[in-house]
């Protein structure tokens, strides 16, 4: 892994201070305070404290079962689909606690899009996949929908590949293309944040590369939080990295710091491949 390359990339991104401290000019989209989560009796997240910054890519790494996916799914409350889940603490999204009784999950998920581990397009045409979000949120005008579909597919760098087959079923294209359709689908409602749950783990290296490049492009307009089990990927694409272990945040810092100079021994062991 070429650290210097990573550093080069970082230096292009504004908002960093020379000493590498966490204090940043960027605003927080998410502030997590004393978050605990249980699956039944299993204490899956323990006292999580994390601030996620605007227009950055935040990577969450850690071994299997460390709670990284759980944390990501808590950010848009998808985790509540598991019947036995209990939470305590707060997650402030743009200053408002997402667990507040009057905060509708639909409202939250309209602002916070998600891309899943395995591509999960709807069994509909490519066009209808992208138009689904705008349609359920009340946009009916065909011309506007056409524009949104094109813009979203361009945004997900897949327009040229599918522009002549918009009426075909989304399952007729390759897995890597399907995943970019899912990204385009999330972009179609112009969310504020995009959560990505190991979005490349089911894809081949070329598709993975395309999605990594896409993430770099997207962070200009969106705040992205990506869970990955691939440490090289985290190093390549993220601005900040959180290392999770056994439901705790062990270390959270700028990505170059985490990968070049971690403070915690366990982080160092993990990134150097001694466990996980």
């Amino acid at each position: 892994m070429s650290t210097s390359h990573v550093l080069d990339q970082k230096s292009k991104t504004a908002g960093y201070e020379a000493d590498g401290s966490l204090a940043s000019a960027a605003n927080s989209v998410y502030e997590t305070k004393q978050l605990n989560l249980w699956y039944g009796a299993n204490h899956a997240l323990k006292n999580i404290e994390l601030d996620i910054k605007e227009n950055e890519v935040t990577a969450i790494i850690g071994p299997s079962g460390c709670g990284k996916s759980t944390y990501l799914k808590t950010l848009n409350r998808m985790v509540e689909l598991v019947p036995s889940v209990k939470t305590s603490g707060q997650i402030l999204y743009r200053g408002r606690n997402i667990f507040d009784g009057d905060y509708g999950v639909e409202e939250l998920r309209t602002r916070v899009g998600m891309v899943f581990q395995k591509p999960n397009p709807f069994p509909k045409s490519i066009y209808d996949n992208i138009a689904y979000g705008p349609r359920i949120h009340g946009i009916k005008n065909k011309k506007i929908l056409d524009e949104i579909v094109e813009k979203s597919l361009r945004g997900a760098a897949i327009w040229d590949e599918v522009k002549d087959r918009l009426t075909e079923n989304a399952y007729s294209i390759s897995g890597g293309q399907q995943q970019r359709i899912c990204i385009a689908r999330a972009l179609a409602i112009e969310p504020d944040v995009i959560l990505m749950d190991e979005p490349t783990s089911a894809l081949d290296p070329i598709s993975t590369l395309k999605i990594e490049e896409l993430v770099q492009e997207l962070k200009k307009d969106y705040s992205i939080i990506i869970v990955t089990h691939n440490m090289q990927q985290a190093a390549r694409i993220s601005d900040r990295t959180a290392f999770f272990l056994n439901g705790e945040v062990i270390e959270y810092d700028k990505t170059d710091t985490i990968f070049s100079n971690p403070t915690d021994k366990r982080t160092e062991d993990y990134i150097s491949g001694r466990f996980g």
Partner: protein
Amino acid sequence: MSSHCSPFGVERGFIMRQSVQEMIAQSKGKKNKQFVEKMIPVILFLIASVSVLTTIGIMLTLIFETITFFTRVSITDFLFGTTWLPFSNKEAQYGILPLIVGTLKVTLIAILVAVPIGISAAIYLSDYASENVRRVLKPLLEVLAGIPTIVYGFFALTFVTPLLQSAFPDIKIFNAISPGIVVGIMIIPMIASLSEDAMSSVPKSIREGALAMGSTKFEVAWKITVPAALSGIVASVVLAISRAIGETMIVSLAAGSTPKFDGDFTGSIQTMTAYIVQVSKGDAGYGTTIYYSIYAVGFTLFIFTMIMNIVANYVSKRFREEY
């Protein structure tokens, strides 16, 4: 190997005279076992042929007796005649349209009752009910399918009809609405259960994708699950229609026996199946035209249900969603 040096012999306190391999070798020699092995597929084939041959026999009887019927009554009169008067003293008339219309009236009402309720039940079971609720409700729903149709017939005649009459006094004792509703109730479990199977097999990941877009639960069910499961749902409806067309006991008891070629649902009608029951109960002797007419009607019924089953098969294969 000597038979006395078996390793188990001493410790266990009994003596094995031979090794297991020797015993196996001996029993292999028995002709008996090989003969049974060879005969089993033959016997199973014969047993399986019985059901196939029976079906072929029924088909042939149906076809030959129907042909005999058409030597006496012209096929155009049968297919396009609008009067069904087999018991007339002057000149019997065999136009099947009134019986078809009677069948269609009952089927139409049954569909109007069963499709909305059946699909709603399926949506509830697949997208809303918790695992525990589903575990209780689905078998209960399937119990409905086990109720003998004669019970449904009584239910139509002695409960639904009086209820309808108290609301709409114009309705006669025998009518198309009451048996239609009850046939509808009878086919609800079929639609609900088969549609629920189709909807439950839509992967969870697809629903999660829709929920993560900010969809409500109902939007997911209505815009994602139902369209994705549409082929299964349509197939279940078509199969249920075929079941409604063939339904006999309920209409025999509650629909009356007046073949009519009109659009009236409130008075007595007769369906194809009910006519066959009427004749089979002994109103006509063997060899009469009336006797042969039940085969012609039965054959028509068979064509109807066969077309429905083919359509259901086609729909579920052709429109299967890929996911």
